């Protein structure tokens, strides 16, 4: 209450200041008549960028009443040839057209064709000639014949009769005799085989690693079968070619998969194992019973000694592993006789999930110690923030140099040195990649965004969640991405090499920053600095719940975040996601003001314009700056009630002694001007330091930039003299240049000079 009255006194003061500046601006604009412009305000709503809400996707960001998604159910039989690495398979796909549109043809994805000898993807980048080669790289790049790893399609049929089809690179169109009507199914079969690549030398998301010492391969197999493309209300058929960076867009469905491998392999995959008793030994079954009840530590199902013994087997017999999975968008598996296997139970809510790891002995002792535990904590963190992990298991498979995600299973790097020792860097690299890839179960495996078009929707959201999960795993964990300062080197870089987050992954220069680092940081800043954790977390969870087992678009995300929080964020999406602007806010000037009852020249002129010819009758207060004529040294440090006796009289006349006791008339008045060389608008976080060393933090809402995008002034009244003003003192906004963040301007020793001083002698 007292505060309010107190403020009104000073609103009167600042009114004069604002009148003054208003008058000046008026005069300037009279001199040059500028051309008109359309709405360029950074706070304008995003009607032009966003598509119009409709029956499929509502304005609130939720699925609409007519929302639909098509489904693909698979029955797959594949066999792995271990001696001459090769996959041979046959599948029957049942495609459900839940759309309101008749479909004249179906599009099927043949991702492995990116590895075919004549793939267009091989020619997608420019290159130059080198001056010097090592013999090895010369042979590899100029002499050796290119590996041919594309799909060989042996059959496309319905009920045994061939179907017409055409292959366009990584997409296959299957022509239907008559359109597939809304609400109808279509079942057809495809036979195929392809040569498996070495994913270590060939750097791929799928393939095998060869172990020279024991002659074994460890397989991590994905994109191994022709998969249905997505048909929806946004893209029609998503048949944008697979060029290598934009990952996958896949419909949900149920999978029934039989995988035949050498009998001495240990295998696991997406889905629930149907014939565990046939493929697992009795010993494994006994240990499994223990694992299902072990919530605090993993139980080893296949020991290192058992795996090492199996390494020498090279069985010529075969075993078939049978899996079933529901509500998944993809299927992957890993298999080798080298695999050690451990698992533990995780309480993620109503039902338990199993956290599982598979790794060759080369991963130990690191993997035995950390992998399964990290899978478990990741499932818990994500389940707390989003929704309960709905799948029965999550597997982390150790594969050299890999970090790749599939439903319920992922490949992760992190290998100790040969003597078993490892650095913190290797350990943290491994923990981070496991958190990240297991986290992908939520985005995009369940919240099924279109990776082919929007890499950031799964990578950015997941990297953001990864940051949270890592900090929950261990406070102060050395997270690689998420902290605002970590994105600065990217955001302040040459604009030529930066793209807006809203770009296709194929067309950006720095995918790591573009699809992972920047969106993750943008969301972290949104959570910690712009919205606050409570509002953010509810809205983010709401987005995940609304789009769980569905296909969201960027707008569904943007709209839900606003809809569920009541915070207008169009300015934030526009700036951070649709442009390459950066944050740079500084303190331009700090001016001190003094109060007097002697009419000043400026004051008299102003009043005259309002018809006041005799100011003395008004009893008004006047504002004086240090460099104005009317300033005198006596004014310094004097309370306005001393300088202006009428102010005291006014207080005595209008307030009771109790009310007056609660009021403190400030002695110091400042006008602080903030400027904004950067294009992004952000709240201004300011730390004021007073002469007695105390500090006060004030955050001005982002809306201060509504009417002036370049600079804005704030009046600060205080009891104590201000000695320092710092913008963003805790580096929470990714301000790319902090040299202008302080008043008086301080020159901090540069990072380079600091290093040089510390390392001298």
């Amino acid at each position, binding site marked *: 209450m007292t505060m309010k009255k107190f403020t009104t006194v000073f609103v009167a003061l600042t009114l004069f200041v604002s009148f003054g500046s208003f008058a000046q601006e008026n005069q300037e604009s009279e001199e040059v008549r500028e051309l008109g412009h359309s709405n360029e305000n950074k706070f304008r709503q995003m009607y032009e960028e966003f598509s119009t809400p409709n029956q499929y996707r509502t304005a609130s960001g939720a699925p609409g009443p007519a929302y639909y998604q098509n489904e693909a159910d698979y029955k797959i039989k594949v066999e792995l040839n271990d001696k001459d690495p090769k996959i041979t398979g046959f599948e029957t796909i049942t495609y459900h057209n839940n759309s309101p549109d008749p479909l004249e043809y179906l599009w099927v994805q043949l991702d492995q064709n990116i590895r075919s000898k004549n793939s267009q993807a*091989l020619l997608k980048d420019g*290159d130059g*000639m*080198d001056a010097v080669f090592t013999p090895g790289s010369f042979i590899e*790049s100029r002499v050796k014949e290119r590996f041919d790893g594309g799909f060989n399609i042996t059959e496309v049929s319905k009920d045994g009769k061939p179907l017409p089809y055409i292959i366009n690179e990584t997409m296959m169109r299957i022509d239907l005799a008559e359109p597939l009507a809304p609400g109808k199914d279509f079942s057809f079969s495809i036979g195929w085989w392809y040569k498996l690549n070495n994913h270590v030398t060939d750097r791929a998301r799928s393939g095998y690693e060869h172990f020279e010492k024991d002659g074994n391969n460890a397989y991590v197999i994905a994109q191994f079968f022709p998969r249905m493309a997505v048909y929806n209300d946004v893209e029609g058929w998503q048949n944008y070619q697979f060029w290598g960076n934009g990952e996958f867009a896949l419909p949900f469905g149920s999978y029934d998969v039989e995988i035949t491998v050498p009998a001495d392999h240990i295998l696991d995959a997406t889905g629930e194992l149907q014939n565990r008793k046939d493929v697992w030994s009795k010993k494994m079954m006994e240990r499994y019973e223990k694992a299902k009840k072990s919530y605090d530590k993993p139980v080893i199902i296949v020991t290192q000694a058992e795996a090492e013994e199996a390494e020498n087997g090279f069985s010529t017999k075969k075993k078939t592993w049978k899996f079933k999975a529901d509500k998944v968008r993809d299927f992957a598996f890993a298999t080798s006789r080298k695999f050690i296997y451990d698992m533990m139970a995780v309480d993620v809510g109503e039902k338990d999930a199993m956290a599982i790891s598979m790794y060759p002995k080369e991963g130990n002792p690191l993997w035995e110690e950390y992998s399964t535990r990290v899978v478990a904590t990741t499932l818990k963190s994500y389940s707390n923030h989003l929704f309960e992990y709905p799948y029965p298991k999550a597997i982390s498979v150790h594969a050299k140099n890999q970090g790749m995600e599939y439903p319920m299973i992922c490949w992760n790097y992190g290998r100790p040195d040969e003597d078993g020792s490892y650095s913190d860097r290797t350990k943290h690299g491994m923990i981070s990649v496991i958190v990240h890839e297991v986290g992908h179960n939520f985005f995009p495996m369940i919240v099924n965004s279109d990776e082919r078009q929007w890499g950031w929707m799964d990578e950015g959201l997941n990297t953001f969640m990864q940051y949270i999960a890592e900090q929950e795993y261990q406070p102060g964990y050395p997270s690689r991405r998420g902290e605002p300062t970590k994105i600065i080197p990217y955001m302040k870089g*040459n604009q030529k090499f930066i793209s807006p987050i809203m770009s296709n992954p194929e067309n950006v220069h720095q995918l790591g920053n573009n699809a992972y680092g920047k969106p993750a940081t943008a969301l972290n800043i949104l959570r910690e600095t712009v919205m606050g954790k409570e509002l953010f977390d509810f809205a983010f969870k709401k987005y995940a719940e609304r789009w769980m087992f569905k296909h969201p678009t960027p707008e569904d995300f943007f709209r839900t975040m606003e809809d569920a929080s009541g915070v207008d964020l169009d300015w934030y999406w526009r700036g951070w996601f649709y442009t390459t602007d950066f944050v740079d806010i500084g303190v331009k000037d700090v001016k001190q003001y003094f109060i007097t009852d002697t009419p000043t020249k400026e004051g008299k002129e102003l009043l005259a314009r309002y018809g006041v010819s005799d100011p003395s009758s008004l009893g008004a207060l006047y504002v004086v700056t240090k460099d104005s004529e009317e300033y005198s040294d006596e004014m310094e440090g004097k309370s306005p009630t001393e300088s202006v006796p009428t102010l005291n009289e006014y207080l005595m006349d209008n307030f009771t002694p109790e009310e007056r006791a609660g009021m403190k008339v400030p002695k110091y008045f400042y006008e602080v001007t903030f400027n904004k060389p950067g294009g992004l608008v952000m709240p201004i976080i300011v730390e004021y330091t007073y002469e007695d060393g105390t500090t006060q933090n004030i955050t001005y809402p982002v809306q201060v930039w509504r009417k002036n995008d370049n600079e804005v002034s704030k009046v600060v009244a205080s009891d104590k003299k201000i000695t320092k003003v710092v913008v963003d003192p805790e580096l929470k906004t990714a301000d790319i240049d902090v040299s202008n963040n302080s008043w008086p301007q301080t020159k901090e020793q*540069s990072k*380079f000079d600091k*290093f040089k001083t510390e*390392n001298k002698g």
Partner: protein
Amino acid sequence: MKKSFFVFLLFLLPCLAFAPVHKFYVSVSEMEYVQEKKSVQIISRIFIDDFETVLNARYGTELFLATKKEGSESDVLIKKYIDQKMQVEINGNRKQLHFLGKEYENDMVLLYIEIPNVDAPKKVKIKNEVLFGLFPDQKNIVHFETKGETKSLLLVKGEGIGTLNFKH
């Protein structure tokens, strides 16, 4: 005929980047001309694991960077490597790079390099071919700042050299 076959194959290498997407090959070097000191100060940020792989492959060593096992020979080799892979020419004169030392920040190594006795740079030619030998899709980003003006280069294999011109 044979030549065109070679040229065709030239394009293959970067395409092998069909890849564990979660691994990116980028280094960032910030170079700043400090007028009072007449020197160019350089901080290069490179992923430790890639850097170590390259040094070990090139010099046949086992360096164990950023671990207790790291010995003093690593600085000698880093200095040697920088001399071979980075060059800076200012206003037409090739400059000597002084490697001052390094520090580790998470999974990055920061190399501190100085070029003393430099007059205000107008034309700067930079070669940065760090890691190109092993990682065909390595990108080296260089920012050069002088008197408040910053210009940048994106250097890739085959185009490891760039020139920047400054007004001041």
